[in-house]
């Protein structure tokens, strides 16, 4: 019987749009209104220059002063290392962003950032052995495997872009790991293999299932996000495990990496029975080198741990949109992490500027404004390092009450979906549909698709159509699969016309799957990224990068695909072996017969009685019978 198998296909679209004057673009703002999220994932850096960071720092410092004003001027919150006292070589910041979604769900995003101005790779001769805030387990891994950048995410559930808008950091369902190795590494594959096994131990995940059959080296997607200008994709490894189940055993080791663990600070809210009782759960670790100062004289390592949850309180909570920290996490906050230099809670109140839609309690007069994914958002800020936040009860329980209905959600600017067409178990067609909802801007997107070897892609059937016209990709990189060794990798650069639907189709053939693969999953993934790098600035310079003239990129993952594969029936392997061998033996036997024997006239042998009689006669010496 044809067994059902899980195939995952991810589309990752990195959009890089530079909006010169977003404030003047009313239509654009409208379109962005609902897609934008707290954090703008800003520029991808390939050239490693730091001019941009310099600008940011100064801006944030100056705006920090203006925090208390809610007069509509640009106010923003940042977590810059600059005001911190010089002696501390490492620092830790934490924040929680809560955003009510239009579907009635609540999106909570935790971010923990540890900065350490050491260099694991260059100081290898005098080994880094004294760890303060940075987790030692990860530090050792970084220096042992010469990792330059490491991004790992574990996700349960699928992010519904159409209902929820863009996430702060997108991630595909299951586990995703991509690593840039230092250019001094000679045996990248060996390092990668070991690294996945070590990480598998650190995060209690089945990352050890990452092998050459699901690892790809994207040539254009997944550029380094941190410092560094090496773009030689030989040092990049990317793999996803779409069937990885994320659960408590992955959360516990993740929490242990935090300086305060789950004892104090925002991490006390992370109770696994609540976090996993949600429609979407994603935890990630991002490590990258960034510039320590404006001239980039010294490097610092940044460890960002993020945890994103979407609670479906609206549907599971009797249709009420009210929420509170206690309701969501069954905990309240009592203190900030003592080691944290900053600890804040943000609530997105962009849709509620005058407080007519909902009401927050306790109220705060601290407001922050930031441009997130090209969209200006307003946030209420609760600073946990201040005693007055906790009030008389020494406990902080944020509460939101709805007064009216929220408006309609606008479609996200960029959206992609994917499905398998065709019937039967022999051939099929993968359709990927990418929507550009922008009214007048065309976006260059880079699609990456990694399809496991047991789907045989036919790249000559690749078609890209926009507005029912052929849209020829300007760049195609294709690496065909090798059976049981390597997946397909397809990357292409496509220009999405404004307000359009672009359909990418490619035909495939299903291979008869072998028994050693019956439990493994398919991982086709698609990545898109543009080459329109307008600014040379390290990405993620802060939790909340604020740049009014923002160019940003978005990564979109499509839903996983489930692909049925024809399978042999393993109920009777011995029968098959025996029967096939029998047929071969019949062939052999009949040829052997004809080859070795000759035709003779059949002379019937005398009957048994006569032969016996002759035998006795021979003994007796009597003449034989005829």
């Amino acid at each position, binding site marked *: 019987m044809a067994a059902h198998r899980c195939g995952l296909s991810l589309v990752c679209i990195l959009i890089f749009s530079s909006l010169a004057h977003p404030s003047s673009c009313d239509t654009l703002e409208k379109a962005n209104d609902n897609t934008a999220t707290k954090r703008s994932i800003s520029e991808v850096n390939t050239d490693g220059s730091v001019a941009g960071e310099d600008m940011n720092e100064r801006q944030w410092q100056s705006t920090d002063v203006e925090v208390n004003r809610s007069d509509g001027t640009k106010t923003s919150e940042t977590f810059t290392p600059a005001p911190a006292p010089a002696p501390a070589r490492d620092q830790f910041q934490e924040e929680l962003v809560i955003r009510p979604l239009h579907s009635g769900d609540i999106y909570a995003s935790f971010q923990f950032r540890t900065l350490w101005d050491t260099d694991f790779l260059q100081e290898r001769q005098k080994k880094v052995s004294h760890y303060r805030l940075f987790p030692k387990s990860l530090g050792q891994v970084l220096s042992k495997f010469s990792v330059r950048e490491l991004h790992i995410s574990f996700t349960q559930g699928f992010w519904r872009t159409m209902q929820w808008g863009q996430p702060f950091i997108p991630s595909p369902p299951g586990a995703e790991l991509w690593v840039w190795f230092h250019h001094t590494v000679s045996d990248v594959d060996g390092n990668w293999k070991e690294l996945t096994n070590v990480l598998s131990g650190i995060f209690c995940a089945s990352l050890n299932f990452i092998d050459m059959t699901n690892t790809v080296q994207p040539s254009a997607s997944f550029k380094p996000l941190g410092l560094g200008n090496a773009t030689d994709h030989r040092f990049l490894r990317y793999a996803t495990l779409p069937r990885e189940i994320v659960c408590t055993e992955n959360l516990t080791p993740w929490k242990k990496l935090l300086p305060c663990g789950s004892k104090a600070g925002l991490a006390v809210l992370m109770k696994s029975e609540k976090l996993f009782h949600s429609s979407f759960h994603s935890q990630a670790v991002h490590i990258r080198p960034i510039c320590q100062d404006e001239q980039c004289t010294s490097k610092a390592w940044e460890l960002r741990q993020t945890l994103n949850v979407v609670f479906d309180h609206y549907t599971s909570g009797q249709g009420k949109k009210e929420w509170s920290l206690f309701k969501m996490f069954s905990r309240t906050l009592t203190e900030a992490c003592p080691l944290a230099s900053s600890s804040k809670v943000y609530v997105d109140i962009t849709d509620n500027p005058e407080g007519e839609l909902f009401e927050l309690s306790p109220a705060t007069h601290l407001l922050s404004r930031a441009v997130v994914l090209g969209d200006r958002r307003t946030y209420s800020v609760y600073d946990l390092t201040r005693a007055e936040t906790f009030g008389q009860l020494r406990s902080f329980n944020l509460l939101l009450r709805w007064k009216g209905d929220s408006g309609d959600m606008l479609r996200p600017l960029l959206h992609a979906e994917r499905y398998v067409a065709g019937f039967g178990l022999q051939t099929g067609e993968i359709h990927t549909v990418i929507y550009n909802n922008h009214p007048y801007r065309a976006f260059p997107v880079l699609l990456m698709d990694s399809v496991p070897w047991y789907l045989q892609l036919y790249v000559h059937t690749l078609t890209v159509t926009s507005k029912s016209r052929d849209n020829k990709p300007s760049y195609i990189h294709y690496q065909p699969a090798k059976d049981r060794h390597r997946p397909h990798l397809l990357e292409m650069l496509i220009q999405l016309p404004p307000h359009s639907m672009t359909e990418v189709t490619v035909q495939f053939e299903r291979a008869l799957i072998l028994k050693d693969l019956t439990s493994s999953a398919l991982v086709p993934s698609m990545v898109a990224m543009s080459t329109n790098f307008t600014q040379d600035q390290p990405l993620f310079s802060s939790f909340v990068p604020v740049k009014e003239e923002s160019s940003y990129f978005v990564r979109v993952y499509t839903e996983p695909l489930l692909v049925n594969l024809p399978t042999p029936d393993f109920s009777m392997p011995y029968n098959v072996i025996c029967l096939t061998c029998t047929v071969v033996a019949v062939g052999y036997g009949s040829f052997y017969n004809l080859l070795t024997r000759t035709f003779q006239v*059949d002379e019937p042998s005398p009957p048994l009685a006569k032969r016996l009689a002759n035998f006795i006669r021979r003994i007796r010496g009597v003449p034989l019978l005829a």
Partner: protein
Amino acid sequence: MAAPLTLLLIVAVTIRAVLFRSSLAELISERVEVVSPLNAWKRVVEGLALLDLGVSPYSGDVFHETPLMIYLFHFTVDYAEIVFMVSPYFVDCLSCFLAPLDRFRKQKYALESDRYPADCLELLRSPKEMFYIPLKVAMFYLLNPFTILSCVAKSTCGLNNAIIALFIFCTLKGSALLSGILLALATYQSIYPLTLFAPALLFFLQRLYIPVNLRRSSFWFFTLQYAFIYVGSLVVITGLSFFLLGSWDFIPSVYGFIFSVPDLTPNIGLFWYFFAEMFEHFRLFFICVFQINVFFYTIPLSIKLKEHPVFLIFMQIAIISIFKSYPTVGDVALYMAFLPAWSHLYRFLRNIFLVSCVLLACSALFPVLWHLWIYAGSANSNFYYAITLLFNFGQILLVSDYFYAYLRREHHLIHGLYLKKKDGTEATLVLK
């Protein structure tokens, strides 16, 4: 003779042209019975697309044609239909050989007729019968549904068949040079025709009246000459591919693919399901056991049939088509085209009716069970496997039956048709 042959050609071309233009063409080109990973047209197009993208077509697991083939299609891809329409007619050449063959045999008979018993006369074919054999062979090949399917699917198997047919034609015409070159080309295309070296050599030896005697220098002289032509052309062709491609990538991708059978897509052969079920540990051993079947029978058959090299060619082609790793119906059609040439064996066939029924029923059941397994989901792979098993069983019976009949006819030619036992009653022949 010419008029019916022309008519036949017109009919054959019409059928193919109509099918090429119909919607069935696409359906046929996806059938696993008709195309294999080695010769599917879709994969040729994919290889060309990869070449256009600047990727080596052999870097993936999709393209397994030889480099010469891809460069042939690189220039003729727009005329592919014509190439495929034309290729079966080379097999027509096959039909032409039978006339000289039988004339040859007739002369031999006339010379040695004294030695044959008188009652064997009815075993020999009348000139009238022989006159129609080329037409029958052409008809059997050109109108064979297997050939038509293979041609409409643009399976490159048709081209390989054409090369083998040309090789046989040149061999029978007595051109050792062309025969050696074409045999090298056929070997280069799919390795297995390697075994046709022995019958070709035997034919030339017979033709030149050189006895097969290991102590005779003339035997060794000719053998080495022919081997040199063959190996030399093989080296030249392989070298040419290397210079066209610039790397040896095609060796593992084409010949490694044929020998190690990594692609287990169902086909009409014996390999796919066996190795899908086989434990990985024993894989290498059984690959050897299965692959050796093609080459295994060459030497014993050559010894047994050293007087009958044409029949030996037939036997070898049939064995190749049964035991090759990715067989298609096109391969079956090639050896079936020989069957009319052995029409004089008909009276000695033991179970031709049963075998015909089995083969016909299997051909009908292939698409049915495939549909049930892949599309309807109401059957499983075992059903399809059972049919492939039966089909191969039928083929083996057919080939061994013809072998039996041939040997028996030879026996009768020497010992007379109506054999008597010692006591004068009618004797039965048995193999001992």
